[in-house]
């Protein structure tokens, strides 16, 4: 800014330093794990900062990639993410569009009924019983359907649709398009940033799905990546608690390699969406 005194400049310097430091501290644990994952198992992990690897080896990854359970879990997670996100987007977009039409009789009541579920719920056990009654236990559906619509995402999507000028839809209506046609030909193409944001939110929560998997899936064949990862970590944790001497004997690098294998897809994909979701959330914030 144009004229600024010494105090203001000092503030700027300290501020930049602080922000940079915060970012580094946030990022460091990931970096540390990456380094540990490529450190030879025999070498042992030295205490202190792991800024650069001394020797690089991919033996942990080699070991990991030949585990059958990893591949089957990866497949399940990809399946749950792709199909689950598709189902969620389908239901969310349709409902959000319908609810963005204020002239729709009953829309206020329906909206309230939906928002109310954010404040009150039956609880873990009744939810479990529903999934059980539907025969979904130990199926991939149990990891997608019970959280198919996240109310927050629905509200965000609706806010976005509300911001689209009515006049754009009018012309299509005059041309005799019905609601499905308008949604498909006009509204969706105009809403790509919001759709990308919400698809990312859904995809990430399906990819990270843990709670529903723990509750509803006991069959190892259907374990998603998160459960596989947890079992890998637990093996070490057991040693960690009894005696607590050296969890690293059990292959800390393998553990960290497992973490990298499941975190990397998210870390790669999410920055591409950042532009969109800042926009998406901005809209939600203004409209509410």
């Amino acid at each position, binding site marked *: *800014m144009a004229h600024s005194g010494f*105090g*203001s400049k000092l503030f700027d310097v300290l501020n*930049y330093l*602080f*922000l940079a430091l*915060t970012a580094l501290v*946030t990022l460091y*644990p*990931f970096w*540390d*794990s990456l380094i*540990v994952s490529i450190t030879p198992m025999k070498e042992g992990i030295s*205490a*202190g900062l*792991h800024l650069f690897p001394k020797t690089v080896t991919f033996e942990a990854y080699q070991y990991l990639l030949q585990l059958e359970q990893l591949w089957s879990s990866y497949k399940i997670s990809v399946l749950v993410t792709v199909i689950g996100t598709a189902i969620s987007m389908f239901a969310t977009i*349709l*409902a959000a*569009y319908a609810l963005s039409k204020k*002239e*729709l*009789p009953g829309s206020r009541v*329906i909206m309230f009924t*939906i928002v109310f*579920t954010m*404040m*009150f719920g*039956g*609880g*873990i*056990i*009744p939810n479990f*019983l*529903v999934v059980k009654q*539907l025969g979904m236990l130990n199926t991939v559906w149990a990891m997608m359907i*019970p959280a198919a*619509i996240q109310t927050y995402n629905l509200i965000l999507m609706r806010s976005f649709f509300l911001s689209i000028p009515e006049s754009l839809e009018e012309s299509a209506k005059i041309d005799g398009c019905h*609601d*499905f046609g308008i*949604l498909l030909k006009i509204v969706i193409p105009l809403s790509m940033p919001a759709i990308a944001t919400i698809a990312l939110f859904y995809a990430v929560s399906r*990819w*990270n799905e*843990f*709670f529903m998997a723990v509750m509803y899936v006991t069959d190892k064949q259907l374990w998603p990546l*998160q459960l596989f*990862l947890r079992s890998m970590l637990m093996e070490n*944790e057991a040693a*960690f608690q009894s005696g607590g*001497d050296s969890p690293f004997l059990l292959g800390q690098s393998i*553990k*960290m390699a497992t*973490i990298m294998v499941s*975190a990397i897809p998210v*870390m790669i994909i999410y920055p591409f969406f950042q532009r969109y*979701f*800042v926009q998406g959330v*901005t809209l*939600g*914030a*203004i409209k509410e």
Partner: protein
Amino acid sequence: MSVPAAAADARAVVARRTLWKRVARSRYLYIMLLPAILYYGIFHYYPMYGALIAFKQFSITKGIMGSPWAGFKNFEYLFGLDKFWHVFWNTIVISVYRLVFGFPFPLIMAILMNEARKLLFKKTVQTIVYLPHFISWVIMGGLLINLLSADGGVVNGAIRSLGGEPVGFLTDDRYFRGTLVWSMIWKEFGWNTIIYMAALAGVNPQLYEAALMDGASRWRRIWHITLPSIRATIVILLILRIGSLMEAGFEQIFVLYHPGVYNVADIIDTYVYRIGLTDGRFSLAAAVGLFKSAINFVLLVIANRLSRMMGENGIY
């Protein structure tokens, strides 16, 4: 019959007729709502009905309706359990810690990021601090174990090189809650700035320029422009946090805890999970869950009322 009343009647008839017309015209919109209505009915409202088993002696074979009523017996039993009050207390303590330490962090961070004018720098910081939000608790748990372990972890390495004794951040019940709270802050503080950043993006830059012209210092600009423009957001987030005071972070604790720290880390949700799904005491577990939901709901209503009394918008 008076004339106005008849007119009102006629109007009502017309209104009803146009209502039907509007409903018929909106038939496609209702079809669009169908999946959502089914979803909320089955996975949100039916479980609320299912929560009735808290008042029953539930057996899976008899079903929700078939099981005999138990009145408040489950609750009476529950309220007599020391263990129950213990997890209740843990939940509140962890949650309050999270509120007190976790709430100001994103706010301060957002204000500081707003002061950083170099766009590329700001974007980079944002990208980095948002990242942990997208990473699952299982992974974060693994990272924490790596970071905090007694022999190879960075943190204990630093403590030891300063001449201290290694600390069992994840194993010692004196430190476990602190580890929970700080790791939660690490994971979510960045993401929680986004909503403030969004609100700040809407502030007219001319306000800042005018203040600068008037010679307002940096602090005054933050105090008089930045903070007031996010006050409503702060209040809404605070209400939501208070309304979920009974949520102490199931997934995080479930991933990190172990019997050695149950005394400080066992919360309502983990307790429900264990007595319900591990021990199969469905009615008792449902009673705990219902108790929790009810408290959350009451807290939300109170917080909302308070914010309205203070002249802010509530969330409903």
